[in-house]
């Protein structure tokens, strides 16, 4: 038996927590418990993002999704969880149809995820690629500390299960949102060349979209006179 690959260990930990608590959301009956289980499941998903090398996305998931959207959801739960509304049960017939649907989706999605053999194992970073990473980092910015070695982050070349450097994604993501894809300065295969544009237009569209949503939600949720109980 080889040494424990900590990356794999933490992946299974976070994956089991995320999937387990997601199933618990479905099974649970009390709305407050469901909200708590969802928080844990999405927090574990943020951990999965960190393990895949997407630490900016992971931090964003924690801040915006768990720390924003779910707080909003919890507020909604607290405001409406009165008496009989806390546990609303579903009939057996609905459950059977839902399980059928789940079975069909599972039969479709899970084998599809397992088809491509090059997806079954990870990719330890070789020395040549580490050099390329250093070059890339220097080209991106001369003021960012390039890859301080820590116990966390990417898989490594010596396959001792210990990652070598932290991924640097924040500045390239920012530049990508402004339209400059600084992560694609090296050679890219012909198949991926069309995807090398920046994301400036979606960025602007999303900004306006968020403004519209802000105004709309504030208008919809303004306080009005409450109707008497039925």
């Amino acid at each position, binding site marked *: 038996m080889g040494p424990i690959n900590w990356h794999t260990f933490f992946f299974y930990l976070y994956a089991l927590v995320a999937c387990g608590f997601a199933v618990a959301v479905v099974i649970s009956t009390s709305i*407050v418990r469901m909200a708590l289980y969802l*928080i844990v499941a999405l927090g574990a998903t943020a951990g999965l993002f960190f393990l895949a090398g997407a630490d*900016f996305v992971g931090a*964003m998931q924690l801040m915006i999704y768990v720390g924003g959207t779910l707080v909003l959801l919890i507020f909604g739960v607290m405001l409406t969880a009165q008496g009989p509304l806390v546990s609303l049960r579903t009939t057996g017939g609905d459950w059977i149809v839902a399980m059928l649907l789940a079975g069909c989706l599972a039969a479709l999605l899970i084998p599809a995820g397992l088809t491509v053999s090059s997806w079954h194992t990870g990719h330890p970073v070789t020395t040549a690629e580490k050099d390329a990473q250093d070059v890339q980092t220097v080209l991106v910015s001369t003021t960012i500390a390039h890859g*301080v070695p820590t116990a966390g982050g990417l898989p490594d070349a010596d396959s001792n*299960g210990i990652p070598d450097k932290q991924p640097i994604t924040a500045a390239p993501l920012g530049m990508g949102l402004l339209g400059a894809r600084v992560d694609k300065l090296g050679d890219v295969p012909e198949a991926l060349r069309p995807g090398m544009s920046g994301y400036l237009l979606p960025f602007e569209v999303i900004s306006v979209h968020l403004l519209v949503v802000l105004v709309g939600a504030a208008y919809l949720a303004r306080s009005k006179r409450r109707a008497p109980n039925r």
Partner: protein
Amino acid sequence: MAEALANYLWPWLAYLSVGLLQCVLLLLVPFVGAMFFVWVERKVSARIQDRLGPTRCGGKFGWLQLLADGLKLITKEDLRPGDADAVLFRIAPYISFCASFAALLALPFSNGWVAQNLDVGVFFILAVLGLEVFGVILAGYASASKWSLFGAMREAAQVVSYEVPLGMCVVVPVLITGSMNLVTIGQMQAGFFTQWLVFHDPFTFITFWVYFTCATASVNRAPFDLAEAESELVAGFHTEYSGFRWLAFFMAEYGSMFAVSGLAAILFFGGWNGPIPITSMLGLTPENGPVLAWIGNLLGLFNFIFKCVLGVTFMVWVRWTLPRLRIDQVMQVCLKYCTPIAAVMFLGATCWTYLLPGGVGLRAMPYAQRYVTSAPADAAAELDRIATTRVARGGE
């Protein structure tokens, strides 16, 4: 540290033990910090109120009082209200404590002494500090008491609202240094105290004060402590908590105060760099060997902890000086004062960095040459360095 240990043990065991050691060291921060800050609070509040504070337990300064209080809290009866949701009631304090502890994971205590050197360190700390609100909401709901729920809702609204100006204030030092990596931001403030970002331009100076206000509101300290207002809601969301669970909430609060003070210290006050660069003057730098570098880092640690304690003491001082704000006043301060001021400071700092990139006076140097550490002065030299070291290593 872990790579050095990996030469002696199996690598996976080396990383496990280093990880556990870092966790234990970081757990000491809320535990010891809470005790110390409780003592500071009692003494400072006593002096402000023209009395003495604890003087009997442990001699003139009463420092054993904290130990006595800790023992009392641990040995208290484990109560739970009858209507309370059992699981949620029990788990709520630990959620707050975990959020507060996780924020310390990305906080550098000295140059390179950080549990996880995340490239998005600033963002991560802000994100995790915002998760503390879940413990509060769950505690308020699970206590099955109207007043607890009110306190919890107010606190949640306050924390979430103040995340906006807090984020904008934090973005100003990130903008000036160009990195979200906290170790890099600290390294860029090496040198005399004039290199500290708080003295970089007037906008950053004002941003520090707005940041401190928002941070105080974010950890629910007075004058923004309506959620725990003793005179109004008994004790707010932690009314029904006693003994060790209350201690967990308490440690979470002081741990968060330490974390936001630490963030202010690194972002604005140079982190582990002292006002005078004694470590580089005395030669306690990495070029002179690992032992001297470690001693230099230890001095940096003392610097950092001193700045954090100063920040927390300042929060304690403000608590016992200013009257409490009403919830509508709290929201007003956030939306009508902090957020616009933070936005204007952000704009001002952007314009300042664009028009005067090297700074003014003592700071009038190009960015790339100002840094004492290993940031390369130009790309070509750095690429050569990489090539020669790879060749020298024999392509391993």
